[in-house]
C-alpha cells in the first residue's frame, strides 16, 4: 500500500480534477476508492446488526416466522430482485462507459447518461413495487409492533407476528432509504456527466456510485430469501 505515495507523476500533472491536497490523480482516485470500500464495510456492519436481530427472532420463534412470511408477496419480491439485478448491470455499464470515455466526448457522456437513466428507472420501479407491497400490508393491519392489527382483519397468524413485521419493516425500510439516497446520488452524477466531467481521466465519482449501488443490491439479495423465502 505504501508505494502509492511514491507513485510517479505519470498522469495528472495537468489533470484539472486533482484537488489541491493530492499529488496526483492516482493518489486521489486510490483514496476515494479506499474510502468507499471502508464506507461500504460500515454499511454492511450496520445491516448485519439487523440481520442478527432477524436470526435471533427466527431462533426464538421459528414457527411464527414461517407462518408470517407466507403473507409476504413472493411475486413482488421476485420482480424486485430481478429489477435490482438488472440495475446492477446497467450501473456497471455506466461505470465502464466512464472508464473508457474520452475527455470532452459528447457521445461518451451520452452513453454514461443513458445507463444512469436506466439504473434510475429500475430504482423507480423497485420503489413503486415496494409501495404496492407496503400498502397491502398496511391494509391488512400487518404493521410493526404495537400497531399490529392483522387479527382484526381476519388474519390469524400464530405466535407473535408483530415482531416479524417489525423486523420486516425496519429492514426493508432501511434498505428503501438506501435506494432513495442512491437515486439522489445518481441524479447528481447524471448532472455532472451532463457537464462532461467524466472520462478515463476522472471516473472515481461514477465508480463509487456504482460500488454503492452494488451494495444496495447485495443487501436486497440477502433480504429477499431471508424474509420472503424462509422455507
Amino acid at each position, binding site marked *: 500500500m505504501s508505494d502509492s505515495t*511514491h507513485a510517479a507523476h505519470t498522469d495528472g500533472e495537468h489533470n484539472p480534477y486533482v484537488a489541491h491536497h493530492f499529488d496526483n490523480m492516482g493518489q486521489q482516485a486510490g483514496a476515494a476508492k479506499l*474510502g468507499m470500500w*471502508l464506507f461500504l464495510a460500515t454499511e454492511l456492519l450496520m445491516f448485519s*446488526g439487523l440481520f442478527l436481530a432477524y436470526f435471533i427472532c427466527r431462533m426464538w420463534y421459528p414457527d411464527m416466522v414461517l407462518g408470517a412470511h407466507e403473507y409476504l408477496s413472493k411475486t413482488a419480491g421476485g420482480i424486485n430482485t430481478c429489477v435490482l439485478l438488472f440495475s446492477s448491470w446497467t450501473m456497471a455499464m455506466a461505470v465502464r462507459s466512464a472508464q473508457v470515455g474520452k475527455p470532452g466526448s459528447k457521445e461518451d457522456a451520452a452513453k454514461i447518461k443513458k445507463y444512469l437513466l436506466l439504473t434510475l428507472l429500475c430504482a423507480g420501479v423497485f420503489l413503486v413495487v415496494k409501495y404496492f407491497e407496503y400498502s397491502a400490508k398496511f391494509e391488512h393491519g400487518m404493521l410493526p409492533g404495537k400497531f399490529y392489527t392483522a387479527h382484526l382483519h381476519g388474519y390469524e397468524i400464530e405466535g407473535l407476528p*408483530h*415482531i416479524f413485521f417489525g423486523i420486516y419493516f425496519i429492514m426493508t425500510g432501511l434498505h428503501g432509504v438506501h435506494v432513495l439516497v442512491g437515486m439522489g446520488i445518481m441524479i447528481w452524477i447524471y448532472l455532472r456527466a451532463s457537464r462532461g466531467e467524466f472520462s478515463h481521466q476522472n471516473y472515481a465519482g461514477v465508480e463509487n456510485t456504482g460500488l454503492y449501488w452494488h451494495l444496495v443490491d447485495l443487501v436486497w439479495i440477502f433480504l429477499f430469501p431471508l424474509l420472503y423465502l424462509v422455507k
Partner: protein
Amino acid sequence: MSEQPASYDLENPSEPNFYKAQKGLKSWLFTVDHKRLGVMYLASVILFFFVAGFLAIALRTELLTPAQDFVSASTYNQLFTLHGAIMTFLFIIPATPGALGNFLLPLMLGAKDVAFPRLNLLSFWIYSAAAVMLLCTLVLGGLDTGWTFYTPYSTSTGTAAGLAALGVFVAGFSSILTGLNFVVTVHRMRAPGQTWDRMPLFVWAIYATAVIQILATPVLAITVLLVFIERFLGIGIFDPAMGGDPVLFQHFFWFYSHPAVYIMILPGFGIISEILTVHSRKHVFGYKAIALSSVAIAIISFLVWGHHLFVSGQSELVGVIFSFLTFAVAVPTAIKVFSWVATLYGGSIVYNTPMWYGLMFLWTFTIGGVTGLYLSTISVDVHLHDTYFVVAHFHYVMMGGLVIAFIGGVFHWWPKITGRFYHEASGKLGALLVFIGFNVTFGTQFFLGHQGMPRRYFAYLPEYTTMHQISTVGSYILASGLLIAGFSLAMAFRKSAPKAGSNPWGAVSLEWKTSSPPIEHNFHDTPHVTGSPYDFPEIDKSGRTH
C-alpha cells in the same frame, strides 16, 4: 528525521499562518482546513468537558450527605446520565481524534490535508447536530436512563430517551466518518519516505482507533436506532412484555461500547508515547511492540464485551469465555506500560507541564488497568459489578487515563497550535492539584465499592458517609486544578506571551518541521522522511553503555 530545503525560514515564514490565511466567520464555519477543524473540535470538546464536569460536581455535592437533600431524585438521575453521556459521546470519543488527531495527523504524515477535507467538515457538523440533540433533552423532559440506555427501562421511561438515542445515532456517524477519513489518510497521504515503521506512534494509535471506530460504531448506530424505533413502534425485540429479550440489548450495546473504551484510550496511549520520548530525548522503547499492541488491542477488544454481563443471567460458559478473553486484552496493554517506563531509562528528562502529565498518566492508568483485572475475574465481579468499584475503575482509565493524557497532549502541542507558550508555573500547580484531587476523589471509591456501595444511588446508608465526603472534597480539589490548568493555557493568548518557535521541544517528528502555527498548506515544500521520528540528536551513538 527528515530533510527540508534549508532555504525556507520556518521562524519567519513568508506565508501567513492558517489563522490569518482567511478571514471572517464564514471562513471558519465552512473551512475544510484540518487545522481549523481541529481547533474547532478542541473548543467544542473542552466546552462539553466543562459542562459534563460541572454536572459531576453537582452530583458529588448531592453525595455529601447520605440523605437526598441538594437535588431531587429525578434530577440526580439526570445528572449522572447526562454526565456520563456527554463525557462519553461528546467529549472523550471525539476528543483526541477530533481535536488533536485532526490537527496533527496530516502534519505528522507530511500531508497537506486529510484525504477528504469536505467529509471532515461534514463530520464536524454532524457532531454539532448530535450535541444539540443531546443537550435538547435537558429541556425536553430530561434523560434518566444512565449512559447505557438499558432496556426495558429506556423504552418505557417518560423522559426524552428517544431524542437522546437519535442524538447518539447521529454522533456515531460523525465518529464513523472521522475514522474512515483517517484510515484513508494514513494509507494514502504519507509523504515520500514516510513508511509504516517511520510513522510516529501517535499516528499508529489514531489509526488503530479509526479502525475500531469503523468496525464498531455501525453496530451502535443500529442498536440505538432500534431503541428509538422500539419506543415509537413498540416492535418488541427488546421488550419482554411483547416477546423480546432485554438482555439482547445489552449484548448489542456492549459489542460497541467495549471496543469504544479502547476508542477512548488508544489515542491517549499515542499521546503518552510522544510526550515521554520527546521530553526525555530518548528513542521510544519497543516501537514495534507499542505500535502492534495497539492493533492487537483493536482486534481483541471486539471479543470481550460479555464482561459487562457477568451477572445478567447469560450462560455460565459464555461468562467464563469472556472472562478469559478479557485477561488476554490486558497483556498488550501491559507491554505498553512497561515499554513507557523503559523509555525513561537512560534519558535526559525535562520536567515541564506536559511531562508531568505524562508521568502522572503512568500512575493513574496503571491503577485503572489493574483494577480492571478484579472486574474481569468473574467470581469477584459478581460482588463488584455495579458498585463504586466499577465507577472508580472507569474513572481511573477514562479521567486518569485519557483525560490526563489529553490535557498533557494539549500542553505539549499548545506551542504548535497557538504559536506561544502556556504559563509554566501555573501549569505545574494545576497538574499537581489534578493529581491529588483525582486520586482523592476516585481512590476512595474503590473502598466504597468493596464495601458494597451501589452506583447510581443519590441516597445511601450512613456507613458510607465518610468515604463519600472525602471523595467529594477531592472532586473540588480536582475542579480547582482543572481551572488552574485552563488558566495556564489561556495565558498563551496574551500579547506578551513568549513565542514558541517552530520546534520548542527539540522534537524530531514532522509536525515540528513547520512554523508555529503552521501555514495554510502545512509545509512550504513537501517533506521527505529519512528516518525514525524518535531519532533525537541527544542520543549517544558512540556505543558507550549507560
